[in-house]
């Protein structure tokens, strides 16, 4: 998958589709691993914007050249940043500044940005962290990064996540409806 337009088309044409993993005859699949690379990186901004299929190892290598690092814990260099985003929690979300997404209707949207501070609109770019690919396809994301020495102090191992209340789950369902009203992402 090479372009945003192709990804949008694929989602529009699909009744049901799974993000990540491998395709099988039973399940249609979006493989994001070829949608990778750095979109923008200015070391003095302490911000990097990357495509979702970029592996953690690739990102770390790029940042290392400027003696910078990611501020969240990673233990699988092969994993893509998109896969980590989909399964992570609040310590990861702390570093997220913005996302580009395609919703279940195939519409491209941007939330947040490439700046450290941004309180315009609800914080959708952090809301979708941990959404397990069920609400939208995340195509690219921007992160706060830090000088390597300072980044270390932020990297905490993920805590065991607690299950949530019935109200929490009902809100999650309503939010799924907003981003994926036809239930395309499975």
């Amino acid at each position, binding site marked *: 998958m090479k372009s945003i337009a192709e990804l949008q088309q694929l989602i529009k044409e699909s009744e049901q589709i799974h993000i990540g993993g491998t395709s099988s005859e039973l399940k249609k699949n979006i493989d994001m691993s070829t949608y990778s690379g750095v979109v923008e990186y200015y070391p003095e901004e302490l911000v990097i914007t990357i495509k979702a299929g970029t592996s953690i190892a690739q990102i770390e290598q790029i940042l290392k050249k400027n003696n910078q690092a990611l501020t969240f814990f990673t233990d699988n260099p092969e994993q893509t940043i998109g896969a980590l985003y989909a399964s992570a929690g609040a310590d990861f979300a702390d570093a997220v500044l913005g996302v580009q997404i395609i919703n279940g209707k195939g519409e491209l949207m941007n939330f947040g940005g490439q700046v450290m*501070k941004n309180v315009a609109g609800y*914080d959708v770019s952090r809301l979708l962290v941990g959404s397990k690919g069920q609400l939208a396809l995340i195509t690219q994301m921007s992160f706060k990064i830090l000088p390597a020495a*300072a980044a270390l102090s932020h990297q905490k191992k993920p805590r065991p996540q607690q299950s949530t209340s019935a109200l929490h789950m009902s809100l999650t369902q309503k939010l799924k409806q907003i981003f994926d009203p036809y239930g395309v992402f499975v």
Partner: protein
Amino acid sequence: MTSMSVSSQLSRALPKGSIICGSENTRAFECDGLSVYKQKPMAVALPTNIEQIKAVLKICRKTKTPIVTRGAGTGLSGGATPLEGCVVLGLSKMTRVVSIDAQSQLAVVEPGVRNLAISEAVAEYGLYYAPDPSSQIACTIGGNVAENSGGVHCLKYGLTVHNVEAIKMLTMDGEELILSRSDEGLGLLALMNGSEGLLGVITEITVKLTKKPALAKLVMAGFDTVRECAHAVADIIKAGIVPAGLEMMDKFAIEASEAFVHAGYPLDVEALLLCELDGEVELVEAELESALKILVGASTIKVSENEAERLLLWQGRKSSFPAVGRLSPDYYCMDGTIPKRHLAGVLEKINELSKHYQLRVANVFHAGDGNLHPLILYDAGVPGELEKTEAFGMDILKHCVSVGGSITGEHGVGIEKLDAMCVQYSVKELEVFHQIKAAFDPDSLLNPGKAVPELHRCAELGNMHVHHGELPHPELERF
């Protein structure tokens, strides 16, 4: 029963003295820190516990009365400006520090606890609450969460969202929702931070506490040009230093602050940089050495010798709003953010606009995180000058968005930046925001009309978002 007025129902449900009604009595609540907009509420409720908040929610739900939740009313974007016929739900009496866990560096507090009061309550353990908006003496933690407030130390210590471990809130239905950083699934806790009182009423907050640094040093450097100062900011970051604070002021702001506070700022420079380094003694000394090497091109340089001097140098910066306020009948404070590499260019643009609109402007920046606070000086007594000032402000925000920034870094949208939201977001993105609001508050009773503009408003304004060359809002009629 149903014929009883909302005020009477509230007075019956809450203890005596908790409900304020009548035009004269509610005047104190007619605006927040954005005082050009005023509206008296129907009533003000000042509950002291969660059961009383639930009672207010129940009455407002039944009577379809809008609620505007309010902390200390120090917000700068009109988030707490009352709506016609609304009940202001003031949480300023809920000031209990519920518990402090020094070991885990957490404190549980009610929403009306003042920001600085948290730090005071935990000082004996060598801890403090890191986010420090300039209004921290007065502003409440509940308001901080609602606005995702910042301050001068965000670059190193994060915004409110980074320093909140958990919250308890009530939905408009009166149901309690507990959100924590350990929750599985979607980031609802992050969503609540900065939601401007539109999604729920926050009733309790667990904040993270930070260890007081062993040493803090402030470096003050003056520059002959703004551009050199902006370069110094980039060079400090590139050198691997993460300053606790990195602030910039332009000549006008320096002069105003110096005249007000006498902090010892140089008056013969075009731009001033304040760079605070904190942490373990050895680290601070090493960072200080590298910072001074980077700042070698500065025309003046000074390092704080002691705490009193460090605080005095900060006081000049922290007092810059009132300092500028002394020079003009009124001033309007902007809050755009930009990628730092555009700092000098954006400042030049602001100066051009200042000439165009014939309005003076003083600039203070949280330079480390690209957050600008241009202060536009005007006189509301001159007919048309407020409108001219708002147009100037809008031009600044449009420019921030055009270089990849945002219309608000820490003050929020409220009622003030509804039009500017049309510049930053597409109609589809704004629709998502409206739908999120509806998921939490389907009858739209919590702070309705704030934070997210109605879509027709954006079309009528013609201030339209252009993204990737798409025609904005093609589905809406133009007038």
